[in-house]
């Protein structure tokens, strides 16, 4: 058994590895990450995960539900550390797996992978507590600076391979007939199907998209999704979509930036630094989608919000069918917005050990039907001239979204270990 495999075994047991080993691991990881571009290309199939926040036992549950590395190809969208009690073990395990199986796991940077944020939100203190010095924190921060800013998933199938999985609630079972494309499936942690959406094949013309209320796909979403089994967090926020042709999927931690109109512009950034307070790199890690038109400045005075028109333009210009991001807590584990052009994936169940939320991971299948396909989405395809005009977006073609299989799961029971007891301890507060 190699040292690395030993370290993996030790970390899987939630035991930190010695400082000297951390140093070596971080050095190797940096050598590996420096070779990656700002936007890593990832071939489907891939399982996309959102925030982890040091909830180690829930990360183990994620691997149980989603499959182990290297059997499953993973993409983690950042925020590995802070808030939870096991940031160190969680991040080092992911890093070990990255070094051991570089082609089977992709790590991109979240806004918590920063010196400034980790000193405030727990990771720094945790390292200090577990090692007695800040060295390990420093090694990890150096790795943070090398993490990619985004990933581009190519070759994702537009429909899901049918599974043999049983329905969690047989009365919600939908049968898939010949010619139907399964677009979205929601599975619980036992692997049972909670809901299934079939893509509406009657919508071939993109013009339908400009008129959502009458779109048949809008009525279809009424079907079973809001009635999931209790505790599964079956969400009403996953809607079928329609369109023609497939596209790539961009994964970033936060969202878009007004300074970035093509993926190539992300590639040009100098990422090997602490996350700046402003600028494109900051935006990619911090911004949020919102029900607004165009770009907005957050009332906080820093941070951008972007509306559906921005997403649709960006996706169109860059041949994307979907943007996948994390960064925001959602009770149901995932939330699709803007006619399924962007999705938030959240993978920390019972966040901060008290929110009671469900976590989700998103599986994108491999497009086996057309081997020669996979158009490269390098962002240099200028199909829409001056398309930043909001009026034009209504007429834009929308690429067929990938088939999306969400697996949701709840907090691992053992993550209550070492936690403040569920029952609050009485104190003589005044």
């Amino acid at each position, binding site marked *: 058994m190699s040292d690395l495999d030993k370290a993996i075994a030790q970390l899987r047991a939630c035991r930190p590895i010695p400082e000297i080993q951390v140093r070596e691991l971080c050095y190797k990881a940096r050598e590996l990450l420096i070779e990656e571009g700002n936007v890593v290309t990832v071939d489907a199939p891939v399982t996309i995960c959102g925030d982890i926040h040091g909830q180690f036992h829930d990360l183990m549950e994620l691997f149980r539900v989603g499959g182990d590395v290297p059997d499953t190809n993973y993409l983690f969208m950042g925020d590995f550390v802070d808030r939870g009690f096991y940031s160190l073990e969680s991040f080092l395990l992911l890093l070990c797996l990255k070094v051991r199986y570089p082609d089977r796991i992709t790590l991109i940077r979240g806004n918590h992978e920063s010196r400034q944020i980790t000193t*405030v939100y727990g990771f720094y203190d945790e390292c200090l507590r577990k090692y007695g010095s800040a060295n390990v924190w420093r090694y990890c921060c150096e790795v943070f600076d090398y993490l990619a800013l985004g990933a581009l998933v190519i070759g994702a199938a537009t429909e899901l391979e049918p599974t043999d999985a049983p329905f969690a609630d047989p009365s919600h079972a939908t049968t898939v007939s010949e010619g139907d494309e399964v677009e979205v499936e929601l599975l619980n942690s036992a692997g049972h199907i909670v809901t299934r959406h079939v893509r509406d094949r009657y919508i071939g013309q993109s013009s339908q998209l400009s008129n959502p209320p009458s779109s048949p796909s809008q009525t279809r979403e009424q079907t079973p999704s809001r009635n999931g089994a209790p505790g599964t967090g079956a969400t009403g926020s996953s809607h079928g979509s329609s369109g023609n042709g497939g596209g790539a999927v961009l994964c970033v931690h936060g969202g878009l930036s007004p300074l970035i109109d093509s993926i190539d512009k992300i590639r040009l950034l100098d990422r090997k630094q602490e996350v700046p307070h402003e600028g494109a790199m900051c935006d990619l890690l911090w911004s949020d989608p919102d029900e607004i038109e165009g770009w907005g*400045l957050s009332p906080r005075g820093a941070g951008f919000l972007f509306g559906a028109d921005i997403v649709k333009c960006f996706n169109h210009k860059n041949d994307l069918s979907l943007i996948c991001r994390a960064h925001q807590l959602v*009770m149901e584990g995932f939330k699709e917005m803007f006619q399924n052009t962007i999705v938030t994936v959240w993978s920390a169940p019972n966040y901060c050990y008290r929110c009671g939320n469900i976590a989700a991971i998103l599986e994108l299948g491999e497009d086996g039907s057309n081997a020669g396909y996979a158009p490269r989405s390098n962002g240099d395809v200028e199909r829409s001239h001056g398309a*930043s005009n909001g009026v034009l977006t209504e007429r834009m073609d929308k690429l067929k979204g990938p088939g999306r299989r969400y697996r949701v799961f709840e907090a691992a029971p053992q993550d209550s270990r070492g936690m403040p007891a569920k029952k609050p301890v009485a104190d003589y*507060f005044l």
Partner: protein
Amino acid sequence: MAANGVETTKAGGTQGTTSRNGAWNVTTRKQPILKAEPIEALSNELGIPIPEMIFGDNIVSLTHIKTGWSLEFNARDALDKVSKTEEGMLQVAVAEQWKKERSHQDEVKQVVKPFDWSYSTDYKGSTHPGEALGAWEQTTQERFPIRTDLLSRPDPILFFDTVDLYEDELADNGIALLSVKLRVMPERLLILSRFFLRLDGVIVRIRDTRVYVEHATNKVIRQYTAKEGSYDHVQEKLRQMRENVPEAFRDANKLAPLLKTVEDMTDVFEVH
């Protein structure tokens, strides 16, 4: 379950207790954060975005059993008291830098939905009169004191709970947290509803509402105390005290004595 003559009940995230003389009841309810749909409904109703962690089903209530009078703490009513305009709106530490850097970018429209995103509230609970007569009357601590001397005695705590109403991480610029603690002793009870705001590099704010009842009386004494201090000032004091600064900044109890009282009022409700 008549331990010490106190009735304790527990069902579906709800638990409560009745004072041994049968006059007062306290009940708490704890549920997970709201799902997407109720959040949207609440946001539409209140006209502001909802905090990231919204415990919209959580409740703390104090009831005068004979009249049905109650004082309740819930997230909806607390958020309704958050400023929905630009008034008093804080800015994060890097906002000035942002303004300079972004001034040339025309495509970015105005600030989206200005409101007090720090979720600062002066919420003192929601009163439901039931069949009781009377009203809250302004008074002073001299006339109706919250007896910290009696509360400091090691009387047995018959019922204790802490209930979060909402929390927001302010996009990692600090924390805004509204939570309620309560303890019931054989002869009295104390509820503390605390709003705690730490906006990194800018401000620390604590707004406490204390509710005090001597079970043998029909008086509910309520004290509201608002405290503030600049972040730098608090940080300096913590350093002088040789505290672990980042850790102390997470502990409202440590920060409270370092802040300046900006508002302090007491009122009393005689339920009959």
